[in-house]
């Protein structure tokens, strides 16, 4: 569960940096490099997050709806910060 919490936080931070730093930089100053770096980082972090949700959902017998909601919520900026708080400590 600790790993899931850490990956959820990483995913959330990478997504915020991508949306509010890298994308504006690309369009306002014509600097595409931050998007080229943060895009894949966010993508891989999201995959790891979704993979860990799948593993925990089966391991802890979570309802499929809860697992699906947690994965979709990972795509909403800031939502993973609340998800981390809602996850059991162990």
């Amino acid at each position: 569960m600790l790993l899931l919490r850490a990956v959820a936080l990483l995913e959330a931070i990478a997504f915020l940096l991508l949306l509010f730093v890298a994308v504006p930089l690309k369009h306002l100053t014509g600097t595409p490099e931050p998007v080229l770096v943060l895009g894949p980082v966010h993508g891989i972090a999201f995959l790891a997050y979704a993979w860990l949700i799948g593993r925990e959902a089966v391991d802890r017998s979570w309802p499929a709806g809860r697992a699906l909601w947690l994965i979709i919520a990972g795509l909403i900026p800031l939502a993973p910060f609340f998800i981390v708080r809602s996850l059991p400590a162990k």
Partner: protein
Amino acid sequence: MPDYSLLKILHAIAATLTVIGILMSAFAVAKPQPATKLAAMRKWDLFVTVPALVLVWILGVTLTIEGNWFPSGWLPLKLVFVLGLSALHGMLAGSLKRLQRGQPAPAFLRFAPYLVIVCVVAIVALVETKPF
């Protein structure tokens, strides 16, 4: 940046190891296994399959950027099957943990080996033919 064909070879090796690992987990979950085998399976999963899966994704993203494959129509379809395989692997990893504790795995995972084969056939066919 390493050569494109070297990245491709590494991607293929990592993908092969991933598929072998997922298929092994799928069989271990679909057919009842003794605890010692489950422990060995979980070790293999943690030290071989998971790192190989991470490499597959990192190298896959790199190859997509390097080869400028984004506009190709077959790639999003391939991604659906790769995502399906990755999700299945996550569920199988959770099932192995459950089985080791003596709890049953979800019933639908008895079809996991067939799902793995369907995904692999679709991925290989799409990559080799690049139909659209």
